[in-house]
């Protein structure tokens, strides 16, 4: 049976709640499953299998996010990454490593929303797969086969700011100017009487 987006969302909400998530977290699971479905990916199946595994929410230290003695829940981690996005612990200020993450693709919807809200590009990398999330752009991935994997030992999240658009302005130091002039000069043929005649204008005694 092919599910509609609305059915993906409502099924994910109830299943996540049934698996013991708090209602607000179950809403995040529903959002994630629907977002992946909108990209043509089967996020609901990924979520279903994730929900059968024991996982835990993250704690963080020195930009390493992990669950002590447990696999990280991608919904709790994704929501926390989104919540912390602009904070010092978040990926905007420093790349973040997620250790031992279940169903890593489920964090992509949260990163996509953060990218869109903050106007940055986010790169998520795990073994065999790089996913790129940019504002108003479809999800880009290097390897679809590894995208929907059940588990990743390490996922690295890096944010890259888009350079602000500013008016054109280039000011050269004298050193740079000297380098450039020397190099540019090499593209010119030295002057000679023969070349002057080749210019096709009147002779040098014309005036």
């Amino acid at each position, binding site marked *: *049976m*092919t599910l*509609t*987006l*609305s*059915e993906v969302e409502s099924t994910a909400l109830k299943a996540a709640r049934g698996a013991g*998530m*708090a*209602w*607000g*977290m179950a*809403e*995040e699971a529903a*959002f994630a499953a629907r977002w992946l479905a909108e990209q043509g990916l089967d996020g609901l199946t990924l979520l279903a299998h994730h929900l059968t595994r024991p996982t835990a*929410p*993250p*704690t963080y230290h020195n930009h390493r996010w992990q669950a002590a003695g447990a696999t990280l829940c991608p919904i*709790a981690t994704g*929501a*926390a990454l*989104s*919540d*912390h*996005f*602009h*904070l010092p612990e978040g990926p905007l200020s420093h790349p973040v490593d997620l250790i031992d993450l279940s169903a890593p693709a489920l964090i992509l919807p949260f990163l996509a*929303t*953060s990218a869109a*809200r903050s106007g940055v590009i986010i790169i998520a990398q795990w073994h065999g797969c790089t996913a790129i999330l940019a504002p108003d752009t479809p999800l880009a991935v290097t390897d679809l086969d590894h995208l929907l994997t059940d588990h990743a030992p390490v996922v690295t999240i890096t944010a890259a700011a888009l350079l602000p658009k500013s008016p054109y302005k280039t000011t050269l130091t004298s050193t740079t100017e000297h380098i450039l002039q020397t190099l540019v000069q090499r593209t010119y043929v030295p002057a000679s009487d023969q070349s002057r005649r080749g210019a096709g204008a009147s002779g040098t005694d014309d005036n």
Partner: protein
Amino acid sequence: MTAPADLTAYRRPPEQVMRLARMGSAHPTRLSFLRNLLRRMQTEGWTFDRPVWDVNPQGVGRAVYRAIGPNHTYSLVAFAHDLPDHMRSDRVIATAWDATFALFDGTPTPADLDRLQANVPLQEAGRISAQELTLARANRSVRLFAHVVDRLAQGQQPDAAEVDAVGYLMRTTAVYGSGKFGAADRDTIAHRPEFRGPFQVEMLSVWLIRSFTVDLVEHLAAARGGPTAVPLDKTLRRRLGVGNSTGLGMAPFLIKHPTLLNNWMMAREEALARIRALPQTTPTTTAAFQTAIQKAIQNATTWTSDHPIQIAKLADLRADLALIAAQGVPTDPYPWNTLWLWAETTLTLEGQEALLAALLEPHGLLIDGLADCMDADEAKAFPLDGSKTVAHLRTDLARHYAWATTTDYTQPENSARFWYVSEEKLEPRLGERYDEPGAALELPIDTGRMAAALATDLAHWPDDTPIAHVLLAHPEHRFIARRVQQSARFPYAEIRENLIAAGTLPIDMLRCKLAFFGASHFDPRSDRWVRIALFQNQPYPQDLASEGPL
């Protein structure tokens, strides 16, 4: 006409508007969804036909009704069944109906009709496709349906009092849209101008169902009476709407869609504020207002109910409408505001909200554009801002949830009930927390109690802590924290009432939503079950072009 710049003094605050007693006194207005639909179709010159009518003398068969707009055509596919009386039930647990319907995107081929015939009569047990926009079913009003067929077959018109007492030939018991049971997702059609507004596909389905119900009684009368039979008188026909029987399912919808509820409320409140801010009336608006009050008086006359609560409210309404008619339109500056302030100190909630509806009626030019603001981008409003501080959250709690945080929810009367979904056909139900099992599986409708719990736990956190830190430690507060954060931008998003208290009337929530649909003749069958009529006294498809401005 343009709206005055500063309407602050004329706006009703959420503390006044978002209370159950007032929401449960709501009346349909010209911003109601069925009015918006009819207005658009009239303005855009939609045309209508019935390319298929294949119904046998026993009333079994299928029919197609088309609505043809400037860019798209939509077809109501109707299946008429022969339902034994003992199987007729309005509850969601029913498995058979007098008629079943789907709204098809385009014009269906015979193959489409065959596919739908194999699925639509089964309703939830069947499956429709992204080519369908809604799935619906309806049951006959046994009393009126039989009476109308009998009379027409004998060459007579039905008794007008009977027509008014019931108000419809059939009542829908569910109209599913928005991706349910395989239907097209709202996102895939919301970009079409005719469907951007809320519930427009559902309203279109019901409006075309209304035509089907009248065609069916005339068909059955002709089959029985032969040359003696007559068609239904035009005036009586117009007084018929489509009934709707609604239970608790509508109440959780209002909680689940806070930004949508906010936008409905804000549009209506903005409309009222613009009118109150008008410096004077005109002869045209005064006359149109008086007509609206007379229509409301007429409507209240034919509006009956056996429910004690509604009987009392109808008495209030009739008395208040008489007071409004007697009061007349003031002649001092800002006359509508004068009238409004008089109403707030004189009338019951029924009368005040009826006055609101009447005030909106003459001012289409000033307010109809607000209908374009009644949809919501829920995905955009969804993410929490985790970098906001505990101090921010405390401020929002104090400003928008003061009604919630002072209640003692350990008192049984303040937490007497719980909302849940039964495994029996997934029917939403209301349980008694201290008398029956299931409270561990309750739905997050206890907004007040959740807000109070959040406020309690926040007390342990310093003001400058980012919410992200709190939510990592307390995922159980994520649901209500999102709502509290939204309340700053969407002040009318939350019903400011303890929805699990003993004595809470779910029908108040149902009425509010149904009034936004455009429902009239709200008739509670219990504190959690209600019948209404849609499209009563509105034109039929064939009358739309010749009708005055809607």
